[in-house]
């Protein structure tokens, strides 16, 4: 067994240089939500297929397309509308940033952000435009005055974007890690 492992490792090493690029799954109707709670800060990352947000994933061709992308990005940026924390927790949106290859060039994503996290988005832009699947990446940072009262978050994303059907949510808090499947019928993520 062990010998095989070593052997397999050697083969892997030899093959490493030619390892094929990996393609992440891209499912229409299904987005990804990553939430981390650290002290009084809640950091959220939302990744959604373009088809869920604006209904298309090709580069905007008409003015109507561009307007739809801009409007959607504006809605996504409104973090307080998309995520409803318990009132008692006193959470306020500190920063929101939306990026998508669909809005390359118009610089929309930078308007409201204080910090830039471009490495991710650029990498994903490259990958996904090749595959013809455009995504929206949104980052949010909330600060809460009473983090002890944080027991869940209502994700109103489905109400805003009716094409979205599902979010695969993952959450990391001081109590550990968890996962949940959020749908329009069950949009609450328990902490």
């Amino acid at each position: 067994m062990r010998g095989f492992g070593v052997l397999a490792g050697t083969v892997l090493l030899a093959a490493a240089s030619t390892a094929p690029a990996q393609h992440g799954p891209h499912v229409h109707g299904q987005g990804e939500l990553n939430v981390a709670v650290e002290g009084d800060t809640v950091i959220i990352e939302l990744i959604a297929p373009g088809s869920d947000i604006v209904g298309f994933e090709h580069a905007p061709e008409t003015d109507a397309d561009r307007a739809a992308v801009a409007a959607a990005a504006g809605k996504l940026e409104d973090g307080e509308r998309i995520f409803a924390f318990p009132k008692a927790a006193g959470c306020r949106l500190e920063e929101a940033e939306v990026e998508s290859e669909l809005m390359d060039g118009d610089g929309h994503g930078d308007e409201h952000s204080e910090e830039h996290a471009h490495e991710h988005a650029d990498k994903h832009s490259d990958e996904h435009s090749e595959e013809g699947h455009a995504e929206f990446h949104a980052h949010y940072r909330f600060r809460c005055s009473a983090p002890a009262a944080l027991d869940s978050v209502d994700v109103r994303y489905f109400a805003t974007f009716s094409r979205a059907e599902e979010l695969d949510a993952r959450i990391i808090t001081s109590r550990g890690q968890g996962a949940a499947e959020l749908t329009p019928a069950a949009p609450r993520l328990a902490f």
Partner: protein
Amino acid sequence: MNRFPIIALAVGSLINRRLTAGLTLFALAVSMMLVLGVEKVRNEAKASFANTISGTDLIVGARSGSVQLLLYSVFRIGNATNNISWNGYQNIARRPGVAWTVPLSLGDSHRGYKVLGTTGDYFRHYRYGKKRNLAFASGQPFDDLFDAVVGWDVAQALGYKEGDPLVVAHGLGRQGFQTHKDKPFRVSGILAKTGTAVDRTVHVSLEAIEAIHVDWKSGARVPGMAVSADQVRQMDLTPRTVTAVLVGTETRFGAFGLMRSINDYRGEPLLAILPGVALQELWDLMGTAEVALSVISVFVIVAGLLGMVTMLLAGLNERRRELAILRSVGAHPRHLFALLVSEAASLSILGAILGLALLYGVLAIAQPILDAQFGLYIEITLPNRRDLFTLGLMVTAGIVSGTFPAWRACRQALADGLVVRI
């Protein structure tokens, strides 16, 4: 006639029919024990799994499935399909946002217990339960190349003490068909009981794993290439591969980005998982089995209650005279109703108590066996609120089902029992 004598009468009547009543009681007790036991095992198994690893943000292995990676890296169940190259490990360890890494190397065993090659950081960073660190019952982490730290169960089962020699078997051979007996280890420490797979693991350094394999190739010893334990100390023992890596990140959110970047790494097909999420996936997989267990427990209870109702109904025929005499001395039909319901209630309550007693008896016997055989540590605790609720529900169901024979008893006319029919 007040209510108290009715209960006394009910108990007296039950004692009079002690064989049938006793068997019915036993059936009820067994079904209650089963329902509580299934629930207990389900919860404890879940807790035992969830408590096995905490404080580790990511687990990285060769690309396979997240549940599979979790099972072999943390629970020592199954084997890795591939290993990670040492370069791949170095690449992970050097990434920004990584606070610590603990490489794990699996593949050998010692008398049925898995041997884990790792570094001293394992004892600093591995946490279980509510972020508890590993503690030493005696001794200390491995220091010398041929030092081994054994888990509590290994030490108990094989009778190891600090300083004892230990020979590692190649592969999973329980018979010790091929052993590394030319390079014996010495037990440098024994870990305190954790209730996790750590208890059933022998820990050695990564270099030691490499050292015992220097004269092995493709799973067999190379003839004429024996390297003695002393010679091996002079060799370069940098591991060539590791099986999995435990990773701690500097920030919680950092785990998401790091996971994505490791999964996208083009140098080598790697898989990074969030252990807590993989654990949940594992439970979701078992969700169907859980539902099946719950359904079975409900039917077990239904069968137990049916048995009780049958006994009470069958008893009605034999007790025509008894009931008729009660009527003739002034008992109202509602007294007979109360009598029969009291019998059902006494049986249910006694069944619940006896069921609990049986449960704890069986748990006390099964605990060490489950722990040793399946690594499932079931903590024996007082019944929780949910257990009491379940018991209450079952007793209520018992009393309610007792109303049926009670209603039949009321309907039996006074004359019915006294007149001897031909």
